[in-house]
């Protein structure tokens, strides 16, 4: 076995042993996990205060890979950048494909490549804004790493969290991922232009989102055709 394989096996064992913590260290593992979440929340509060102090509207966009987060951000940037100074922070395991797409619509972008991490956290955002003069921005979007699980653990300090799912993910996608819907303010059900062809039960998706989180605003969109993008803009206050 090569050194690289050996290291990978050690890493997996380490992670597994933490998950299946022995009785004698289980309490320590739980306390550490709580401390990590508390630290993230404190930092997120600081980030949010910085945004508010500079009159910046801020949004965290979460959703699976391929749901249409970047396509929606392209539409949003197209509408906002003629009037507002927009910064988009893009989270991905690797590449700056999304940042390059959004930059074409005159938004400033910063890419975070998270490597092994499956979500952005408040520390990432704090590291970016400590170097920025926030007076140069009116609105900040943070496009989280594409998945519907990990981002629920970490708030980022934005005004609102927008969850994006597409009808190509199937009508069960909402009920299978309750935590992120519970912790989001707006649910966007995207790719509605494919409804007839796919026969997805969109009404069920809307009802599931409302059942999980009665406060959540739900909207159907098509980033491709532009359907309901204006309504989405209204929902986010523009």
């Amino acid at each position, binding site marked *: 076995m090569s050194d690289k394989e050996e290291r990978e096996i050690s890493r997996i064992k380490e992670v597994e042993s933490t998950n299946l913590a022995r009785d004698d260290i289980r309490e320590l593992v739980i306390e550490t996990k709580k401390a990590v979440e508390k630290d993230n929340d404190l930092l997120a509060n600081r980030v949010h205060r910085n945004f508010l102090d500079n009159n910046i509207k801020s949004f965290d966009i979460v959703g699976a890979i391929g749901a249409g987060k970047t396509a929606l951000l392209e539409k949003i940037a197209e509408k906002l950048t003629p009037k507002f100074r927009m910064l988009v922070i893009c989270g991905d395991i690797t590449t700056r494909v999304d940042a390059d797409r959004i930059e074409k619509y005159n938004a400033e972008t*910063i890419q975070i*490549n998270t*490597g*092994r991490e499956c979500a952005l956290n408040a520390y990432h955002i704090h590291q970016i804004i400590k170097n920025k003069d926030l007076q140069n921005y009116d609105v900040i979007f943070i496009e989280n790493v594409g998945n519907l699980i990990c981002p629920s653990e970490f708030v980022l300090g934005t005004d609102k969290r927008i969850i994006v799912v597409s009808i190509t993910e199937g009508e069960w996608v909402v009920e299978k991922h309750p935590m992120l819907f519970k912790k989001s303010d707006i649910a966007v059900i995207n790719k509605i232009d494919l409804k007839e062809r796919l026969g997805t039960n969109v009404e069920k998706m809307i009802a599931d989102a409302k059942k999980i989180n009665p406060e959540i605003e739900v909207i159907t969109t098509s980033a491709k055709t532009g359907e309901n993008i204006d309504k989405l803009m209204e929902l986010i206050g523009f």
Partner: protein
Amino acid sequence: MKEELTKIEEIIVNPTGIKISNIQELMETFFVKLKNRVDNYIGDYPTFIEPVYLEDNVKIGDDVLLGPNVYVGANSEIPDYVEISNTIIFDNVKIGENFKLENCIVAKNSSFNFKNLNLKNSVLIGVANLKNELQTIGF
């Protein structure tokens, strides 16, 4: 970008003549011009917050966070659990595991063969096998 880098290197080779204001100003200018280049390293999956510029043959360990505003010179080694932001590391540098550097400059050919260091606003120079052997100049 290279112009500022050369000036910074010239200043830190003569540690007694370091003017703090000069370094801070040069670093700020350098970071404004810093581009992103992260597709050429040797290692697994670090976290990068752009801009991060890696020269050739940079080795990076596990659980490493680089950026924003990090330049790493050729043949330098960044081992496991390191976190670096707003920092310039010149060529042929080896730092220790679990180093946290913020707003620092590490001189060419430096080698720090110990673990655990948390340092801000400093120039690090030379070879140190123990923490108390480390030569730093604050700025």
